[in-house]
């Protein structure tokens, strides 16, 4: 069964969702009543994005790569940090004897510390992701 057979029942809905450009990749001439230069460029870039000209495709690829880089970097940092803890405790059991104010350090490290750290990492990612998106919009809109 080819992809097109499989997708058939939803074809019209898919068309509505993606827009007709998805099926007919042809370039349209755009004539604007409002012909300030800035607006013209913004519209043209958006149409380039939708029609996936080489420029548009490059822009989107760059955006996706940036976002993925931020996400992967932060996820690896957190995952490595989390995965180092059990093996540290396993190899150096004497860590369990250290105490602050009568509470063993491992209890503080596992019971309290992770939550602010996770929130902090999330906050950093949100800021980075929103900055990438702002840059992208500015580039399109300039």
């Amino acid at each position, binding site marked *: *069964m*080819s*992809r097109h057979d*499989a*997708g058939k*029942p*939803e074809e019209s*809905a*898919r068309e*509505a*969702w*993606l*827009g007709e450009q*998805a099926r007919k990749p042809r370039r349209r001439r755009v004539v604007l009543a409002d012909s300030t230069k800035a*607006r013209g460029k*913004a*519209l043209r870039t*958006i*149409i380039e*994005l*939708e029609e*996936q000209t080489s420029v*548009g495709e490059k822009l*989107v690829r760059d*955006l*996706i790569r940036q976002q*993925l880089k931020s*996400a992967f970097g*932060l*996820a690896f940092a*957190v*995952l490595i940090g*989390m*995965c180092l803890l*059990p093996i540290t*405790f*396993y190899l150096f*059991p004497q*860590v*369990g004897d250290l105490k602050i104010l009568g509470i*063993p350090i*491992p*209890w503080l490290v*596992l*019971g*309290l510390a*992770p*939550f*602010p750290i*996770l*929130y902090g*990492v*999330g906050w950093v*990612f*949100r800021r980075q992701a*929103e900055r990438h*998106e702002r840059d*992208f*919009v500015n580039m399109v*809109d300039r």
Partner: protein
Amino acid sequence: MNATIWSLSAILAVAAVTFLLGYVGSRKANTTPDFLVARRAIPATRNAAAISGEYLSAASFLGVAGLVLKDGIDALWYPIGFTAGYLALLLFVAAPLRRSGAYTLPDFAEARLGSVNVRHFSTFFVVCIGVLYLVPQLQSAGLTLTTITGLPAWFGGLIVTVIVVVNVLGGGMRAITLVQAFQYWGKLFAIAAPTFVLFVVFLASPDRGTQPLSDEGVVRFPQAETITVAEQDVKVRVDEPLTLKVHGQIDGRNADGPVFWGRGVYELSPGTTMEFTAGSPVPVVEGSPTTNRDWTRPQTGGLSDLIKTYSLIFATFLGTMGLPHVLVRFYTNPDGKAARRTALHVLYLLGLFYIFPTVLGVLSRLYLPQLLVNGKTDAAVLMLPETMVPNLGGQILGAIVAAGAFAAFLSTSSGLVVSVAGVVSTDIMPGKVRDFRWATVFTGLVAIGLALLLPRADASLTVAMSFALAASTFCPLLVLGIWWRGLTWVGAVCGLVVGGGMVITAQVVSVVSSYTGRWAPAFITQPALITVPLAFMTMIVVSKATRRRAPADVNQILLRLHAPDPLGFIRDRDIARFGTAEEKARMAEDKRRGAGRTR
């Protein structure tokens, strides 16, 4: 008796508020988008509270404290993983998932891969995960109500089902959003208030009972205790010899009167009664640390426990982003940016909550060691207030905790019912509001039927299994679908089948092994460490082999998933399929104006 009345009135109050908020929320709900995604108009902070309310199930509210009581410090990986899962969701899924404009997880799969086959497979796994998660909720609801009030076990599950189904019938997603958001704050209060009071009580009476936090040796009964083994066989391990009185069967032999137990493992048959004297060592259910030293120190269980910990980190970190009832809530945000803010806010709300069960778990080690004998540690949070404060104050605190637990059952179950009913009504039925209502009734009936028929497993075990299932099916589908152009529907289906099939097999094997002597190795009971990478690899390899099947419009789709919201690329698929003519016209209009929205 007094305590029962307090608890019952608190539970009734929660039920009444749930109905009221559900009614308020569903007054204006009348279209399919209302029922599926609450018309995509939920602000980030409210949605975050609703997600947290839905996510903090009985496994979190009762289970985490119970696991801390039983397993000590190593149990803290559960709350860490449960929270870290939202970080992974925020990093990889939240915003693009919302921008896809899909209204269910199978709908996303079809939108991204352009095939109804992958949609059908996704539907199957959504229903699997939903039911696997829903059944233990209903069963623990029954058990909790029995513990508090002595009503029969089927009654609790039934009453939760009825409340949830009636609420969801009224307004679907719109009805439950307000309810779940309210229930988060209710649960936070219900666990924070008792924790503060009990902690002060503990500080005021430091010499009461044993001191396992600083002591070496084993945990001991603070006072004389009589314990009866309930419906199942229990294996306990004794580390320090003790003498006790037994009426019943030990290791299959009858015993009646004083018995001496040396070091070793003893098997207790149902109905056996044991009388312990004050200060005698507590036999601990097999598989949990017996000495205080092992309980307070991390990773004392050897290599297999280390692997289990890693598997748990893996399953919870990646499993959360595959839970359909969590994901569907992200579709209710207005745009991708709001979805991201929602996930971030959830991190904060969950971190706030999970401090408290840990404290309660440690306290119950001091005051409720008898739960270690029969392993029913889920009851710790419910029993602790009255044990520590044996007067009216303790009864009221107990009632607050009971109400919180009941809210946990209600909010999680309603989220699950909405997500399963949404998928069933749009994929198997035509997707009108009437179909959604029928699907709700159907889901409720199946869930309560299974909850009554199936034997009661450990709630945390079943929930851990549904995390493993979600991590091995929808996590690779979403991550690869959102970030990799090469994914094809054939690859996705193969990955779903391999990942999901292996987890379900592991589940069956571990159930069989739990009845025939626990012979299954750690990677069977915690399979995520193996199944998740295999599912990812299958999807990638098969997609590469079937490169021809990749959707021709993959670039447009990825643009839609990642383009910033102000550019106006979001097209909501529920409007396209179920919207009124007027809404469709508005969407077409938006599309034509597209660019106009940037300025």
